[in-house]
């Protein structure tokens, strides 16, 4: 079960024609899929489309009623391959993932799919993780569309347009026998807005019908000579069909007064940003009404030559607003103008930066400069005047600390890296290949562990070259998410086969945690729709791993440290696997908190633990924090003139995971930490024992305070 539940929100998926939908972009896309008779949806989670997967998982009952099948795929490659169901059958299918990382993984299947072409509409919904909030390398999905000839939709970022793009996408796919990619940017995925719904549609053909009357056609399979035919077909039939469809259905939009002598061409996704810049320049109103000629590309691939050339006709200059690099659109438009012998000045990159997100300020600056230099008559006096430089406060940059993401309070991965720190102190620093997942936060303070990350489930493989005789062994870290995504074959199998003499640490937190706590094969949860509880160590042994250690409580820092030390120093050759298992605390709290609260309310005996620091024992060195970084373990200044440094302090959010005590013990830090166990609804024995103990303790305390001087505190 995922971190966020959409059980309430998904009820909106049932609304019918004419009713207004209000909610998040992701939910709107799901609704649009249902309205367009989708037959199946597959995907792999990851921001910004994790919620799409969570919505679909929470909506499985509704999907079932409509005869829609939903697969929580093992990887993006698996999700993309699922679209094979639309090759021979007129069934609409959709696949979704985080891009470009997911598209990288999926590209094998995508290239095959695009080569043979599709009969039923195939829609690939990519969450374009670019710009602020992104967690991945900054690249464009555009390149994948071009290389495999997949049409790319980049609708204007409002729910009405996004929902329409889903509809257009399926139809375009069917009209041109080509898969279509729908690009939705981070902010659009989490956009709250509204649109008027239509009725949900059952798929035209059910998967059951397809299975029971199978079809095949050799010419749709990628093998010579069909593969050569596919390439010709792409150019001679599918491309023109797509261009016709896009033009006749007016998927791209012309706005403003086309007599203007300048114009702006933009990706649909950039539209709101451009309009905001025009609004600020006094050139557009609240509703986007403007006299500036605009050409909005809701389809960014293929480009429609004659639409663009007619837009440029009689224009002195056009500005291309294309976020990211390389500037594929601008290059293509340049070629079009040149070939047509046009004299229109083409601008874009230069006014706008080649790299990086087009934020509000970047867009405003770029658009204003374009007007100032090419059409000053559009501007009011204010717009013509150069901007007053914004006030900056350099002192702030020195004061305000960075706040990168890190492990949550009570995270079971924290003690693993604390143990690695301790091993480092004994055996020296090691080469650590990191992976993708929450555990990658180890690269940041306070742990500073991990040298590279080569992709999801590729941590162990990234250490392959270091399979040589040396005084130290390489360590690879990989999460359970990465393990099942790709790591089993590329990491474990590869290490066993090549007899890699390194250490592979698999962090098993019972979920695909970084993406929002979705279940995976090794999850311990009961999931009525999925098969779970498949131990990771069984999989490793199944592949031939022999040195496998499982640690069932990562908070046991001493045990973690010893296991790592043994793996690094044992005489045994070949890969050494350590599976470190403890449940993701975020999910555990979400699962347990209501149950505990209810039990306490019902009068049941319950023990709740929390940690504390004795401020008069703590000396303010913060060694504990350098082995933790827990949000709940902080510092506080004491009201004591004799003390300079703030002491450690634990706030109310502590979940009593035990890391503080274990680290203090294993690292021989200090005796400041204590664990307080509060027994709610204590039973008779608890109360009696407590009473006796208290009597004994207070008697001794009173005895001593009668004989000494002590500070009152």
């Amino acid at each position, binding site marked *: 079960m995922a971190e966020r539940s959409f059980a309430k929100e998904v009820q909106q998926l049932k609304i019918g024609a004419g009713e207004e939908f209000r909610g998040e972009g992701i939910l709107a896309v799901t609704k649009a899929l249902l309205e367009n008779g989708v037959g199946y949806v597959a995907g792999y989670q990851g921001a910004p489309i994790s919620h799409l997967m969570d919505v679909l998982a929470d909506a499985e009952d509704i999907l079932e009623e409509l005869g829609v099948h939903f697969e929580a795929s093992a990887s993006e490659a698996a999700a993309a391959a699922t679209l094979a169901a639309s090759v021979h059958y007129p069934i609409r299918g959709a696949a979704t993932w985080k891009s470009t990382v997911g598209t990288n993984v999926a590209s094998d299947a995508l290239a095959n799919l695009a080569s043979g072409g599709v009969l039923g509409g195939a829609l690939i919904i990519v969450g374009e993780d670019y710009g602020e*909030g992104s967690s991945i390398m900054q690249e464009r999905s555009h390149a994948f569309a071009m290389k495999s000839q997949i049409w790319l939709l980049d609708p204007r970022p409002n729910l009405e347009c996004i929902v329409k793009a889903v509809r257009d996408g399926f139809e375009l796919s069917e009209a041109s026998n080509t898969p279509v990619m729908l690009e939705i940017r981070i*902010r659009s995925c989490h956009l*709250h807005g509204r649109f008027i719904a239509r009725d949900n549609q059952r798929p035209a053909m059910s998967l059951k019908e397809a299975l029971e009357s199978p079809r095949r056609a050799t010419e749709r399979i990628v093998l010579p000579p069909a593969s050569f035919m596919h390439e010709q077909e792409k150019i001679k039939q599918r491309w023109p069909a797509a261009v016709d469809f896009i033009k006749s259905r007016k998927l791209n939009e012309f706005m403003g007064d086309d007599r203007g002598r300048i114009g702006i061409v933009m990706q649909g996704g950039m539209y709101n940003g451009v309009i905001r810049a025009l609004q600020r320049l006094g050139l*557009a109103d609240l*509703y986007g009404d403007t006299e500036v000629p605009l050409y909005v590309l809701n389809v960014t691939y293929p480009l429609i030559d004659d639409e663009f050339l007619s837009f440029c006709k009689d224009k002195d200059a056009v500005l291309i607003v294309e976020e990211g690099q390389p500037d594929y659109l601008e290059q293509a438009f340049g070629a079009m103008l040149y070939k047509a012998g046009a004299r229109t000045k083409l601008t874009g990159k230069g006014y706008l930066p080649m790299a990086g997100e087009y934020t509000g*300020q970047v867009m405003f600056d770029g658009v204003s400069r374009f007007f100032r230099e090419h059409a000053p008559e559009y501007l009011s006096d204010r717009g013509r005047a150069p901007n007053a430089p914004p006030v900056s406060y350099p002192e702030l940059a020195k004061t305000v600390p960075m706040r990168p993401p890190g492990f949550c309070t009570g995270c079971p991965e924290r003690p693993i890296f604390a143990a690695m720190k301790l091993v480092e102190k004994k055996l020296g620093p090691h080469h650590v290949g990191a992976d993708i997942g929450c555990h990658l936060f180890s690269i940041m303070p306070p742990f500073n562990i991990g040298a590279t990350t080569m992709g999801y489930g590729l941590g162990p493989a990234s250490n392959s070259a270091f399979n040589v005789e040396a005084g130290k062994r390489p360590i690879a870290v990989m999460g359970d998410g990465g393990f099942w995504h790709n790591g089993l074959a590329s990491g474990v199998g590869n290490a066993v086969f090549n007899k890699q003499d390194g250490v592979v640490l698999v962090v098993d937190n019972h979920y695909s945690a970084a993406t929002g706590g979705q279940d995976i094969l090794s999850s311990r949860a009961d999931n009525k729709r999925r098969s779970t509880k498949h131990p990771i160590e069984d999989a490793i042994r199944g592949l031939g791993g022999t040195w496998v250690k499982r640690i069932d409580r990562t908070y046991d820092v001493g045990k973690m440290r010893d296991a790592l030390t043994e793996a690094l120093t044992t005489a045994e050759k070949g890969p050494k696997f350590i599976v470190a298992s403890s449940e993701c605390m975020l999910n555990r709290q979400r699962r347990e908190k209501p149950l505990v609260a209810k039990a306490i309310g019902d009068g049941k005996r319950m023990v709740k633990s929390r940690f504390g620091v004795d401020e008069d024992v703590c000396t303010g060195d913060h060694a504990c924090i350098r082995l933790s970084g827990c949000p709940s373990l902080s510092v506080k200044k004491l009201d004591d003139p*004799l003390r300079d440094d703030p002491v450690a302090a634990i706030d109310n959010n502590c979940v009593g995971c035990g890391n503080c005590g274990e680290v203090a013990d294993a690292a021989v830090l200090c005796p400041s930490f204590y664990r307080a*166990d509060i027994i709610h609804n204590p039973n008779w024995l608890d109360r009696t024992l407590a009473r006796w103990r208290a009597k004994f303790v207070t008697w001794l305390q009173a005895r001593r305070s009668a004989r000494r001087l002590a500070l009152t505190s």
Partner: protein
Amino acid sequence: MTRTFSEDRDIIKLAILAIGGQGGGVLADWVVHLAEANGYYAQATSVPGVAQRTGATIYYLELVPDKGRTPVLSLMPAPGDVDVVIAAELMEAGRAIMRGLVTPNRTTLIASAHRAYAVSEKMAPGDGIADASKVLDIARQASHRLIAFDMESIATRSGSVISASLFGALAGSRALPFPRESFEETIRAGGKGMEASLKAFSVAFDAVSAPPPPRPGPEAPSVPAMRGPPELLAEYEKLTDALLADLPPGVKSMAMAGLAKVVDFQDLEYGRDYAYRLRKMLALDEDSGGAARDYALTRETAKYLANAMCYDDIIRVADAKTRGSRFARVREEMKASDEQVLTVTEFMHPRLREVLGSLPTGLARWIESKPGLCRILNPLFDRGRHARTDGFAWFSLLYGLAGMRGMRRKLLRHEVESAHIAQWLAEAERLAPRNYDLAVEVIRCRRLIKGYSDTHERGQSKFDRVLSAVPLLEPREDGAQWLKRLREAALLDEEGTALDGALKTVATLEA
């Protein structure tokens, strides 16, 4: 010339800056519902992604009166174009200002003045906490209106979370054209934890017009109160009165704090030792022209001598863990009610070294000199102890250890610490007549020694390395400033990398 449109001031632009896990999303949802309930068109976006794991996050909303037609709104804030910025933590307010989202001509900045320290602030071996007053000062200049008070503690006191008090402050600021009742209705519609949220909302709402007074600062440290049998208290009073009479005004309160600390640590006799050493330093201070320097040497000695004399041995820890006042404090911090049973488990890991420190000097030295014996003894001690201090056995043991106070002066640790203190004071005393400021800095270097086991040894080594520069710095007028820099460098990181760099610089100083 084309038609121009007047810039639409109807759009209310609102940004929320929070830390992942603070409930920024809940607040954004509330604002959306509030606006929609009041006939507005609301658009909200966020970029949670990986930052929701304790990182800095931002939510952005645009609200505009709904006239039936879909407006075109921006998905991200632009510098200089935001009406309301809500920061769920003080440094996040600073971040909003750095991003240009807060401008003096229009932005209402609503910031919770509490701090959630970043890892970089917490992990420094010294005091790495960022200067909050600097951020508040700039926030005042940078914004049209600043509303800043501790909304976190308001929420906690009401049993709620900060989104509720931020929402209350937003309502109280009147920055949105919606009535208070409508805000409260929004919270009610949310259901879960409604009562507590409404309480936090209400307190924060009122606090906007009457901000709670800032907590009294540490300007007036209260005179430490001592407790004990009357005859000992009378003795103690004699001791304090005599010392107060001898000390210059600027030193008094520090010396009283120091005296109380050493007496609490050991006994009255120990307090007399402290007073003796302090008087000695005062005499030297007067001879060295300390009057012109506010007796800085004596004041700093009063502070650091007390800390040095109260070294962290097993006896002190056992004493701290078994006091009645500590039991009361734990109960209060843990918010345990009288009906609940509270048990306390300590995490201790004394090594042979610490154990030897608690043995009579002769015996300890004899064991130390027998490596074979140490090897046998070591495993007996070097392991973690999870001690139930509320139970009979562990309490008795710790109580007994704390009772060894009476013989502390005969134990190895005391001998080691006393020698170290004597050497340190002697160095300052030697320097005082030649380079007064450097002597003061030498005293202050005691701050470097802290912690237990490895940490303590590391501190000791840093102390030695910093003081190793004294001969070079002694003849220099700016010697004190250099020593201060070295000490500060030593507190920057654990390994002492910054200190090594600073020492290299000192070594290259022109004479």
